[in-house]
C-alpha cells in the first residue's frame, strides 16, 4: 500500500507547495507517464524535503499521486479489463515460467494495491487456486495419457493399459519422461496465468460495472447474464448454510450423501430467489420499451444479423492462411453494420444511464500499460523467440530475458496511477 508516504517529511509551507505544484503541472501529467513521477511518490518518505529540484520533483509527484477513489473518479471498468487482456495476451506469447511468474506477480501486486473490500474483490484468490488446479490437471493428464513430446529422461513408468486395435494412437499409462512433464507444466502455467489475469480484472472491476458501458440494445441481455452470474455464488452460500444446518438434524455434514440430500432444497431456494428478483425487477420498470416503427425494427435486425455474419466470415478470412485479402475489409464492414444495428436497437430502450464511468487520463494510462505489455511481448516474440520459449527437448534451465522482463514490469503502472481505494471501515492497519 502506498499509504501516506509523505508523513516523515517536515511540512512545507502550503502556499509554496501549491505554487511549485502549479509550476510543474502543465508538463507533468501528459509527458512521461506515471513511472518516473510515481517512483519518487512511493519512496517519498525518505525524500529530503523542500530542497531544490528534488523537492520540486517530490511535490510534482504528489500532484500526480493517485487520488483516493470514489464513485466520481472511479477508473473505467473497461480500462481494467483492457489492462488484464493485455497481460493475458502477453502470457499467451510465452512459456517461460519466469516470465509467466512475473506476470502473475505483476497482476497480484496491482490487485493487492488497488482492490477494494467489496465481496467480488476476493475473487483473485479463487482464480489463483483455479490456476494451480489447471497446472496440476494438465501435468496429471500428460502423465496419464502420454504426450507427443519425445524424451529421454524417464522419471517413472506407469502400468500401461493395453488398448484395442481400433483405438490405436491412444495410450493410457506407460513411460513418463521429464521432458513431457516439463512441457505440460509450461503449458499449464500459461493457461493458469491467463486465468489469473481474468481473475485480476474481476477483482478490480466487477463485471456488473462493465455492463453499465454496454450499448443500450444489449443492456437487458447483459442484466440477465449478470443475474445468472450471481446465481452461482448464492447457490454456493446456500450449500454451505444447508450443510451446516444438517448438523442440527444430527446428520454428518460431509460426504457425497450430504450434498446430494441438500441438492433439491438448494435448487428450490435459488429458484425462489430468482423469481422474487424477477418480480422486483418487473415492479421497478425493467423491460419498459419505447414504441418504434416496424421499419426501424426490421432494419435493426437486418443490420445486426448481417453485421455478425460479416464479422464471422471476415475473421475466418483473417485467420485462414489464404484469405487475408478480403478478410480485413469484410470484418470492418461487418463490425460497422453490427454497430449501426446496435445503435438503432438502442432506440427501443428508454433507459438512461446514471453516472457512467468516465474514460479519463488515468484510464488511458491503465489500458495503455496493458497494451504496452502485450505489444512489447509480441515484439520480443519476433526478436528473441528462444528466450520466450525455453527448450524442453533437451530440457534447459529457463533464463530471465532482460528486456521482456522489463516490459512486463510496465504492467505495474496501474498500482500507482489508479485511484486508491478508500480505507475500509473498521479497524484496519492505520499507518504503514
Amino acid at each position, binding site marked *: 500500500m502506498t499509504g501516506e508516504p509523505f508523513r516523515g517529511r517536515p511540512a512545507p509551507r502550503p502556499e509554496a507547495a501549491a505554487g511549485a505544484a502549479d509550476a510543474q503541472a502543465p508538463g507533468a501529467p501528459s509527458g512521461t507517464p506515471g513511472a518516473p513521477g510515481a517512483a519518487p511518490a512511493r519512496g517519498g518518505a525518505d525524500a529530503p524535503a523542500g530542497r531544490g529540484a528534488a523537492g520540486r520533483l517530490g511535490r510534482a509527484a504528489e500532484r500526480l499521486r493517485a487520488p483516493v477513489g470514489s464513485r466520481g473518479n472511479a477508473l473505467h471498468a473497461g480500462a481494467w479489463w483492457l489492462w488484464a487482456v493485455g497481460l493475458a495476451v502477453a502470457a499467451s506469447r510465452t512459456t517461460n515460467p519466469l516470465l509467466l511468474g512475473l506476470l502473475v506477480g505483476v497482476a497480484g501486486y496491482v490487485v493487492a494495491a488497488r482492490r477494494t473490500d467489496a465481496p467480488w474483490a476476493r475473487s483473485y484468490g479463487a482464480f489463483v487456486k483455479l490456476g494451480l488446479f489447471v497446472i496440476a490437471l494438465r501435468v496429471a493428464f500428460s502423465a496419464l495419457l502420454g504426450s507427443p513430446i519425445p524424451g529421454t529422461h524417464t522419471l517413472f513408468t506407469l502400468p500401461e493399459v493395453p488398448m484395442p486395435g481400433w483405438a490405436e494412437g491412444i495410450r493410457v499409462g506407460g513411460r513418463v519422461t521429464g521432458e513431457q512433464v516439463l512441457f505440460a507444466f509450461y503449458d499449464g502455467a500459461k493457461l493458469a496465468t491467463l486465468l489469473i489475469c481474468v481473475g485480476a480484472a474481476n477483482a478490480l472491476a466487477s463485471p456488473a460495472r462493465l455492463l453499465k458501458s454496454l450499448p443500450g440494445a444489449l443492456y437487458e441481455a447483459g442484466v440477465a447474464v449478470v443475474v445468472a452470474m450471481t446465481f452461482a455464488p448464492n447457490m454456493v452460500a446456500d450449500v454451505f448454510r444447508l450443510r451446516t444446518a444438517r448438523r442440527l438434524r444430527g446428520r454428518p455434514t460431509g460426504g457425497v450423501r450430504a450434498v446430494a440430500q441438500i441438492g433439491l432444497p438448494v435448487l428450490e431456494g435459488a429458484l425462489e430467489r430468482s423469481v422474487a*428478483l424477477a418480480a422486483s425487477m418487473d415492479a421497478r420498470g425493467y423491460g419498459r420499451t419505447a414504441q418504434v416503427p416496424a421499419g426501424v425494427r426490421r432494419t435493426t435486425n437486418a443490420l445486426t444479423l448481417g453485421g455478425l455474419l460479416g464479422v464471422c466470415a471476415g475473421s475466418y478470412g483473417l485467420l485462414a492462411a489464404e484469405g487475408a485479402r478480403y478478410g480485413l475489409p469484410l470484418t470492418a464492414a461487418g463490425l460497422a453494420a453490427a454497430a449501426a444495428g446496435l445503435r438503432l436497437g438502442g432506440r427501443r430502450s428508454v433507459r*438512461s444511464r*446514471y453516472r457512467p464511468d468516465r474514460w479519463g487520463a488515468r484510464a488511458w494510462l491503465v489500458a495503455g500499460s496493458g497494451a504496452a505489455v502485450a505489444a512489447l511481448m509480441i515484439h520480443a516474440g519476433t526478436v528473441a523467440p528462444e528466450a520466450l520459449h525455453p527448450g524442453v527437448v533437451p530440457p534447459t534451465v529457463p533464463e530471465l530475458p532482460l528486456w521482456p522482463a522489463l516490459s512486463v514490469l510496465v504492467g505495474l503502472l496501474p498500482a500507482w496511477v489508479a485511484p486508491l481505494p478508500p480505507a475500509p471501515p473498521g479497524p484496519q492497519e492505520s499507518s504503514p
Partner: protein
Amino acid sequence: MIRFDDVTVTYADAAAPTLERVDLTVPEGELVLLVGPSGSGKSTLLGAVSGLVPHFTGGTLRGRVTVCGRDTRTHRPRELSDVVGTVGQDPRAHFVTDTVEDELAYGMESLGLPADVMRRRVEETLDLLGLAELRDRPIATLSGGQQQRVAIGSVLTTHPRVLVLDEPTSALDPAAAEEVLSVLQRLVHDLGTTVLMAEHRLERVVQYADRVVLLPGVGEAPVTGSPTEVMSVSPVHPPVVALGRLAGWSPLPLSVRDARRLAPALRDRLAGLSPAAAERTGGPALPPEPAEGAGPAGPPQPAEGAAAAEGRTGRSGSPPRRGPLRRVLDRLRTGSGGPRAHAPAPAPRTPDAGGPPAARLRGLTVRRGRVEALRGIDLTVSAGETVALMGRNGAGKSTLLGSLVGMVEPTSGTVAAGGLTPRRTPPRELIRQVGLVPQDPRDLLYAETVSAECAAADADAGADAGTCLGLVGTLLPDVDGATHPRDLSEGQRLALALAVVLTARPPLILLDEPTRGLDYAAKGRLVDLLRGLAGRGHSIVLATHDVELAAELAHRVVILADGEVVADGPTAEVVVSSPSFAPQIAKVLAPQRWLTVSEVAAALAGREEHR
C-alpha cells in the same frame, strides 16, 4: 389514489379465493396500515396494488384495481413502476445491482430520466434516508436495517405517489425499525406520499397510521377505520392496546405516550404489588391457586417427550384459536375459569441453581477474518432457565448460538453444552444435548411431506417411530401429514422445525429470531409452548429483537453489542431501564416493574380476590 372495486383474487390451485369482494379506497397522502392474522391475504392485497398479482403470480383477479387512475388489468407492473414503489418482505431479494448508489438509481434508469435529474434525486434520497456514508458500499456488506433503508430508497427515487411495503420492520432490531418508521413518517408528512403497509409488529407501527384496514380472515370483508376504532375490535393488537382494554381506558391508547397519560390511576392501583419481587423469591407473581397445577407450566416432570405431548394435547385442544392476550382478557372478565387460570408470570418456576449448567461459555472469542464477531463472552445458562439474547442486527447473537451447536468454531475460549464440546461432538450425539431452530426454519426441512420429515427426524434422533409425528400432532393439530413443508405458514413451519428438534429431547433448546413473520396468535402459541418446555426443565436461549417476547418468557436478558456482553441480569432489571429494549407495558408503568399485560391482569385479579 388506490381503489379496489369488488376485488376477488383466486390463485390457480386454491380451493377458495384468497381475497373476496374487497372494496377499499385509499385517499392520497395517507399512511394506511393493513393488519390481520397470517394467511388473511395481506400480501395478496399489496401485490394487487403493484400489479404483481395477477400479472406475475398467476391466478385470477375479478373486479377492478386502479392506482392513480390506471387499471392494473391493462397496465403491467413495469408500466406502473413510476407511480407505485414496492418493497417486499426480504430486501435482499429486491436488489438488482451491487452498490448502494447504483441501486438507488436503478429504477430511474429504467424510466429513462435524464442524468442530471437522477444525480439530484440520488443525493436527496441519500440524505433523506441517512445513507450518505454508505453510498459506495456493496449492498451485501450492509446490516439488515441499512438494507431495508436502501430498498425503500431505491423505490423512492422514482418519486412514486404510492409506496407499498410488506412487513418493513419485521427483521429489524428495535432501533433500526424506528429508523425506517421515522423515514416513512417524513415521506407521508413532507412529500405527501401515500403509504400502504402490512406489518405484524403492531406495537411498532400502529401509532403512526392514519387509518387501519383489518383483514379478519380468509373471505371476510375488510374492516376500515381509524386506528382506535379498529384496535378496539381487532383480534390482533399491540400490548398497549391490550392494557388499555384491560383498564377500560377511553379513548383507547395507541402509543406509549397516550397510555402514560392515562396510566396514573392504574399505577396507583398496582402500587402495592410487585412482580419482580415475587419472581426473585421463586413463587409466581400471583397468589397461588389450585388451578395453577393444571396450567402449562405444571410441576417439573422428568419424562419429557410423552409428557410434553400429553400436556399439549390437553391444552391446545380446548380453547378456540385466539390471541393469548385476548384469552387472558376474556378469562379476566369472566373470572378465573378455564384450564389456564392465569398466564403465569415470566418465571413459572425458578431455574435450578444447583444442577449442572445447560451451557457454559468461558472467554469465548470468535473471529471472522479480521472481525471479532464475539469477544470474551462469559455466559452460563442453568438448567430450566430461559435466557433472551438481545442486541442490534449483527451484534453476534446468531454467532453465539452457532457456537453452542458447533456450527461456529471458537477462536479462543471454551464452549460447553451439557458437558460436551459442541465442535468435537458428532452431530448425532450433540442433538441429544442441544437443539437449534435456525432463523429460517426451512433450513432444517428437507423432506417432501411433513410425515416424511418426522420419520427422518425419528431416525436421526434414534427415537421411537412416531415420536416426532406425535409432537407435530400436538403442536400443529390441524396439519395434514401429506402437506409439503413449504406450503405451511411461517408459524406452522416454525412449529414443525421445533418438533423436529424436540424429537431428540435436548435439555437445551436454542431459537434464533423465532417470532419473525409470526402474527400475535402464532406468537401466543409459541409462548405457551416454550413456557411449557421451560416448566419441564428445558433450558431455552432465544436470540430475538422482539422485546415483548423476551418480556413474556425470559428469566434473564443478555444484551450483546459489538460482540460483547453489555448487560446481563433478570429481565425486569435489564429491560425496564432500557429505552429500546423495554416492552411497552414497562414503558407505560415505569418506574414500576411490570413487563406484560398478563402480569398486570393477574395482579389486579389477585387484588380483587383479596378484597
